[in-house]
C-alpha cells in the first residue's frame, strides 16, 4: 500500500505530487497568466486558476486535490492565510503561488488573475469571503458548513443564483459512491417507506461545555489576529483557540453540527429530498459548577445534544430526523451481529458506517446504515447484503469522494449551468446548511436564561433561573427565516459583524 492511486486516470499520487510541486516548475505545463506581466487572465481556458483562502486543515486537503486533478486542469495560483504556521508548508509545495495574508487585498489586486476561489477557514468568516468571491464572478468551493449563520447561508444561496458561478460545498461525501448505492437501494424499495432517520457523531472532539477563559495570553507571533477575527466580535485571544478549538465557541464555530452535520445529514437530505425543516426540538447536556447550580456557559456549545428535525416530504407525509452527538447514540439495532464485538472503527456499533459519524435509515421493510457522506453503506440485517440485486442505475462521480473536487474544476471550466456538481449552493448545500444551523439555533435557545426571584418559605428571597427556550418545539417559517412560536430564538439567525465589516447583503 503505497503510491495509491485513487483514480485510474490519475497518474500522480499524493506523495509524488508533493515532490513535483516543490521541486519542479514542470508541474505546470502552461505558465500561469499572472506571471505574464500586463496580461489579465483570459477565460475560458483549459485550466482553472484557483485562489486558495486557508492553507491548513481541510484547506490542505482541498489544495492537494486541486493539484492532483487527473486532468491536470487546475492551478493553485494564489495562497492566502492569516497564520504563517499554516501557510509555510503550502508555500514550500507551491513556490510559484503568490501569497497574501488578507483575502480582501488578494481579491482587490489580483481578481483578473484567477477564476475560482476555494475557502477553508473558520466558520465565522465563510460567508464574507464566499460572497466576496461570487461578487467578483469567481467560481466557489466553500467548506462546510457554508456559513456560521442561517441568514448568511441564505444570502450565499441567492448569490450563487444571481452571479451564475459554479458553487460546491466541501462535503465530499455528496460525491461518494455509497451515496449512489443508497439511492439505488432506496429507489428499488429495499427499505420500503422510510419513516425515521438517525444521524450521530463522535463530535465534539474539542472542548465544549466550558467557560470562556479569563486568561488571555499574547497572540502567537505567527497569527494575524485582527484578520483571523474578521467578522467576529472583538475579543482577546485564548490558549489553543487556533487551529482547532474555535469550533466549540459560538462566536467563531458551529460546534458538532457544524463540523459533521452536512456530512451526516447529507445522505438523507439528498436521498429523501428533505428540503427545509418545519419544526425543530431537542435538548442538550447541562453542566453544573456547584451543588444544584447549573453553569451558564452560553459561549460554548454543549457536551452533547439530541435534536429532532421534522420535515414534510414531497408526498405530504412527515418524517423525523434525529441528530445525536457527544457520545449519545441511538439504540444498537438488534439486526447487527449479536456476537460481534463493539466499537471497532467500523462495522459495529456505534461506528456502523464510519467512526466519525453515521446515518441509520429506518424503513417499513428494512434498515440501512452508512458512514458520513454515505460511505460504507450496509443493509440490516447483515445477511441481506448477500442478496442485493439492484442494478447500478446511476453513473458514479469519477474518483469517488476525491471526484468531488475534480468535478467542480471540470464544471467551472465548462461554465455555469453546463455540468452538474454534487453539492451546489442552490437546491442543496444552502438548504442543507440552513437545516444544520437550525440545530444550533435550538441549542443556543436552550441556554437562554432569565434571572428570577423566588420566594422560599424558609430562606426568603432566592435567586433562581428560568429557561424559557427549553423543551418547546420551534416552528420554523423557512421562507421568511423565522421561528414563529418563540421570538427570542430569532436572535440567532443573524449575527452583527464586528465594526468595519458592515453587513452581508446580496
Amino acid at each position, binding site marked *: 500500500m*503505497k*503510491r*495509491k492511486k485513487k483514480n485510474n486516470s490519475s497518474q500522480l499520487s*499524493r506523495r509524488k505530487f508533493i*515532490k513535483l510541486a516543490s521541486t519542479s516548475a514542470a508541474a505546470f505545463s502552461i505558465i500561469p497568466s499572472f506571471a505574464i506581466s500586463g496580461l489579465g487572465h483570459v477565460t475560458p481556458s483549459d485550466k482553472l486558476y484557483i485562489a486558495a483562502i486557508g492553507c491548513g486543515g481541510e484547506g490542505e*486537503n482541498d489544495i492537494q486535490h486541486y493539484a492532483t486533478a487527473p486532468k491536470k486542469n487546475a492551478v493553485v495560483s494564489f495562497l492566502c492565510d492569516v497564520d504563517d504556521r499554516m501557510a509555510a508548508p503550502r508555500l514550500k509545495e507551491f513556490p510559484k503561488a503568490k501569497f497574501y495574508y488578507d483575502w480582501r487585498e488578494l481579491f482587490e489586486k489580483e481578481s483578473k488573475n484567477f477564476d475560482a476561489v476555494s475557502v477553508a477557514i473558520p466558520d465565522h468568516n465563510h460567508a464574507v469571503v464566499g460572497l466576496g468571491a461570487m461578487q467578483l464572478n469567481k467560481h466557489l468551493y466553500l467548506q462546510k458548513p457554508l456559513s456560521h449563520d442561517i441568514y448568511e447561508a441564505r444570502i450565499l444561496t441567492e448569490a450563487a443564483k444571481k452571479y451564475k458561478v459554479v458553487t460546491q460545498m466541501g462535503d465530499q461525501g455528496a460525491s461518494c459512491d455509497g451515496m449512489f448505492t443508497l439511492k439505488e437501494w432506496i429507489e428499488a424499495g429495499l427499505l420500503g417507506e422510510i419513516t425515521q432517520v438517525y444521524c450521530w457523531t463522535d463530535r465534539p472532539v474539542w472542548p465544549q461545555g466550558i467557560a470562556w477563559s479569563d486568561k488571555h495570553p499574547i497572540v502567537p507571533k505567527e497569527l494575524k489576529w485582527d484578520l483571523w477575527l474578521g467578522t467576529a466580535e472583538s475579543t482577546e485571544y485564548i490558549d489553543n483557540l487556533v487551529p482547532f478549538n474555535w469550533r466549540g465557541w459560538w462566536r467563531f464555530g458551529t460546534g458538532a453540527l457544524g463540523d459533521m452535520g452536512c456530512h451526516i445529514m447529507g445522505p438523507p437530505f439528498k436521498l429523501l429530498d428533505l428540503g427545509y425543516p418545519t419544526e425543530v426540538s431537542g435538548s442538550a447536556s447541562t453542566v453544573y459548577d456547584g451543588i444544584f447550580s447549573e453553569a451558564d456557559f452560553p459561549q460554548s456549545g454543549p457536551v452533547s445534544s439530541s435534536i429532532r428535525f421534522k420535515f414534510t416530504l414531497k408526498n405530504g407525509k412527515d418524517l423525523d430526523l434525529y441528530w445525536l452527538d457527544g457520545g449519545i447514540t441511538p439504540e444498537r439495532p438488534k439486526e447487527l451481529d449479536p456476537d460481534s464485538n463493539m466499537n*471497532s472503527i*467500523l462495522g459495529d456499533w456505534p461506528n456502523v458506517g464510519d467512526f466519525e459519524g453515521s446515518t441509520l435509515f429506518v424503513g417499513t421493510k428494512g434498515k440501512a446504515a452508512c458512514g458520513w457522506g454515505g460511505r*460504507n453503506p450496509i443493509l440490516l440485517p447483515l445477511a441481506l447484503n448477500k442478496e442485493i440485486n439492484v442494478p447500478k442505475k446511476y453513473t458514479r462521480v469519477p474518483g469517488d469522494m476525491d471526484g468531488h473536487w475534480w468535478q467542480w474544476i471540470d464544471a467551472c471550466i465548462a461554465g455555469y449551468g453546463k455540468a452538474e456538481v454534487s453539492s451546489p449552493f442552490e437546491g442543496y448545500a444552502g438548504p442543507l446548511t440552513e437545516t444544520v444551523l437550525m440545530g444550533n439555533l435550538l441549542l443556543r435557545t436552550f441556554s437562554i436564561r432569565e434571572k428570577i426571584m423566588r420566594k422560599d418559605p424558609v430562606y426568603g428571597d432566592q435567586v433562581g433561573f428560568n429557561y424559557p427556550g427549553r423543551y418547546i418545539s420551534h416552528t420554523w417559517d423557512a421562507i421568511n427565516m423565522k421561528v414563529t412560536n418563540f421570538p427570542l430564538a430569532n436572535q440567532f439567525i443573524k449575527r452583527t459583524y464586528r465594526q468595519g465589516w458592515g453587513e452581508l447583503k446580496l
Partner: protein
Amino acid sequence: MGESTKVTMNVKSTHFIIVIVLCLASVAQAFSLTRHGPGDSTKTWRQLFNGKDLSGWSHVGDGNMTVENGIIQTHGGMGLLCWAGEKFGNCTIKVVYRMEKENSNAGFFIRIPIEPMEPWMPVFYAYEVQIDNHPETSDEDEYHSTGMLYAFTKPLAIAWKPGPEWNTFEITLDGDRTIVMLNGVKVTDFKEGDPVPPRKFDFEPYPGKRPEYGYIGMQNHGEHDVVFFKEIAVRPLDKKPEKVFRE
C-alpha cells in the same frame, strides 16, 4: 492432507535455518520463536486456496487475480481478493507469497470489519500486512515495510527475502493482539491501543480499534506490482475455541 504435510515440512526446514541464524543474534528471540513456531499446534491448517481456482474468493475493485500452475497471480489494480462470507479471529493465517521483481507491492488484509464492496474500505478500516521491501524508494518510512501493519507498526526485525524468493507470513490474531511472523521471525507484535504515528496522507488507514473477527484478503496493487500467492491457510489458536461467523 498430503499437500498440507509437505507444506509443514517446508516451513520446518525454513524454521530450522532461521533458528540457527537467530541463535547468533538473540537467544531470547529464538526461544519465543520456538514457542510460537508452526510445529507446536495440535490443530491443522485449513487451506483456503484449493490450488486450482479461486473458489470461495471474491474480487472487488480494479484488476483481477488468476491461477496458473497452482499459484495465484495479481493483475493490475488496485483491487482486493477477499475470502467471502467468513470472518476470522483467534487464529493464525499463513500466507506464502513472492514478488515478481526484486521488489513489488501488495498486502494481506486482516480484520476487515464488513464484507468489502470496494477495495478502499479495507485500506481505511482494516489492517494491511504490508508487502513492500523498499518503502524508502517512495519516501515512505519503516512503518510501511514488509510485515508491518501498514502505517502503524515499526519492524521488530528485518526478515524479508527479495523477489522472486518465496516468503511466509504467519499472522496470528489473538484477541486484540496481532502478531506477524515473517519467515519465522517476529516482525510485528501489536495490541489494540498501542501508540501509532499520526496519519499523514489520505490514503493511509484511520487509527482506531479493529474488530476481533474480520474478513481477510489480498491486494493486487497495480500493473507494475505483480505478486504471487501459493498458500493461504488458517489454523485456530490452541487456547481459544474456534469461532467462525457465517452470514
